[in-house]
């Protein structure tokens, strides 16, 4: 489908006072073509771009409503990873004595929990994005992809808020950043793309099969434990490392820590993770675009 924003009604130049009914000047080509076939991924993405204001307002709505409905508002965004890091620091770091690559365990865990919580919260609320907005989706047209994208946008804002605490923690422990820190935005970009890919997939799946929403929290919990969130990837035996790297989250979280704490980068695992992230994103956005029309019929 194409949209030509310039098409509009123009008043013809008739002498004033005459009963001038405006004459619409019609474009030569249709501005909107409605066809049975699904629109291509590219035209879906183009539509998202033309609707970017709506994307902005949906993100703004979710943030605004959350900060109005909860007393602690922004504090929750910080408390969730902070409390988790605290509990893990006591039980995993102190009592179970898990190593943390020479970084204070609390900082180590918090730096892992930030990208992980961003990812898992994005996927969890992304999976509800179509279902929760069905009253809008069945009444107004806009590219459906906007809904799961908006969810990731909201979580990205949360991430940035919680990140400020990490800066404070690192300052408190007297840690210094190295040139590696310039790789940090690259890994954040990568986890955003991964969250988009998986979130878009589950948005479509959950609209089709409602029990996906029940299975997902369990799956995400397991996923956390097979990722280097509360333990360093270096504890994984060397002959298992390659297999371990096929979890795209592991390469990203390792990369986040390495860039922040000036540790050596594990390029193999970073490269594998980057390839899987891109493949996931392309495949699932394509999947979503193909499925969305039949999903609207059952929403």
């Amino acid at each position, binding site marked *: *489908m194409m*949209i*030509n*924003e310039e*098409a*509009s*009604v123009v*008043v013809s130049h008739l002498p004033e006072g005459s009963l001038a*009914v*405006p*004459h*619409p000047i*019609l*474009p030569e080509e*249709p*501005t*909107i*073509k*409605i*066809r*049975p076939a*699904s629109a291509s991924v590219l035209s879906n993405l183009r539509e998202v771009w033309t609707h970017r*204001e*709506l994307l902005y*307002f949906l993100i703004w*709505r979710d943030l*605004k*409503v959350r900060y*109005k*409905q909860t007393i602690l508002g922004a504090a929750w965004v910080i408390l969730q990873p902070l409390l988790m890091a605290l509990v893990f620091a006591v039980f995993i770091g102190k009592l179970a004595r898990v190593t943390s690559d020479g970084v204070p365990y609390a900082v180590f865990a918090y730096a892992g929990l930030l990208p992980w919580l961003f990812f898992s919260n994005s996927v969890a609320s992304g999976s509800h994005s179509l279902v929760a907005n069905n*009253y*809008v*989706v*069945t*009444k*107004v*047209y*806009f590219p459906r992809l906007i809904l799961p994208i908006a969810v990731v946008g909201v979580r990205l804002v949360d991430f940035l808020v919680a990140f400020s605490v990490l800066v404070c923690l690192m300052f408190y422990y007297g840690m210094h950043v190295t040139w590696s820190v310039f790789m940090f935005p690259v890994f954040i970009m990568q986890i955003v793309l991964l969250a988009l890919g998986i979130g878009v997939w589950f948005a479509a799946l959950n609209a*089709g*099969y*409602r*029990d*996906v929403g029940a*299975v997902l929290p369990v799956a995400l919990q397991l996923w956390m434990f097979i990722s280097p969130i509360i333990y360093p990837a270096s504890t994984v035996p060397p002959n298992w490392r390659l297999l371990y790297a096929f979890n795209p989250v592991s390469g990203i979280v390792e990369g986040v820590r390495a860039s922040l704490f000036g540790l050596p980068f594990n390029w193999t695992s970073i490269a594998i993770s980057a390839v899987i992230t891109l493949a996931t994103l392309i495949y699932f956005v394509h999947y979503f675009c193909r499925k969305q*029309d*039949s999903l*609207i*019929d*059952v*929403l």
Partner: protein
Amino acid sequence: MRPIIEVRNLSKRYCFDNRVLANRNLREVFVKALKSPVERFYGRKPAPETEFWALRNISFEVEPGEVLGIIGRNGAGKSTLLKILSRIVKPTMGEVDMYGRPGSLLEIGTGFHPDLTGRENVFLNGTIIGMKQGEIKNKFDEIVAFAGVEQFLDVPIKYYSSGMYLRLAFAVAAHLKPDILILDEVMAVGDAEFQKKCQAKMKEISGEGRTVIFVSHDLMSVMKLCGRVLLIEAGQLLDVGEAEGVISNYLQNLSGATAN
């Protein structure tokens, strides 16, 4: 004159079976996947899909500046037609070409959030129905005055009376000015005074040379507002023509059906 909307052989089929039924779950899918080879082995056929044609082979054209009414009984397919024209639902067959920017109001107040204030909801709802932010800003005072909710702009709309809510929702909707306006029973809500206001607004919109497609059960307002009317019955186009003729035809049919 060239038509602004061309609808060619439009059909829409809905299927009701395990694969597309609402509230289906994974268990059903697994059970079906396991059962189907067994059933094939014993020569039993899987249960046939129940299909339902909401629209069949609808073709029509709309001239620029025309106000087209669509009438028909409940379940005739009017809403499905509007949903396809609004791009919410894809047709199963057929095509539509539009030569202008469409805007749909299948309900008013779509996306209103109870916890947000009147002001915030004007922007949210306006953006959802397809207005640009600058456009909303320009028309903001006009919208608020039209709704008459000036004092309550910064109150969350969950504290609004239903009348205030309705007026605000309609005020935003009335300021959506696309080339092609698609309306579904928007005026069926509210009291007599509200409906009068709506009709006046409709007249104003069509007077500006915009094309309007308008579904209603209120035959009086269809007669007043629309030049041409489509009559849809069981998903098929039964009659097209001057409002008066089609409506009296429809009324005769109705009374004939009840007499039988």
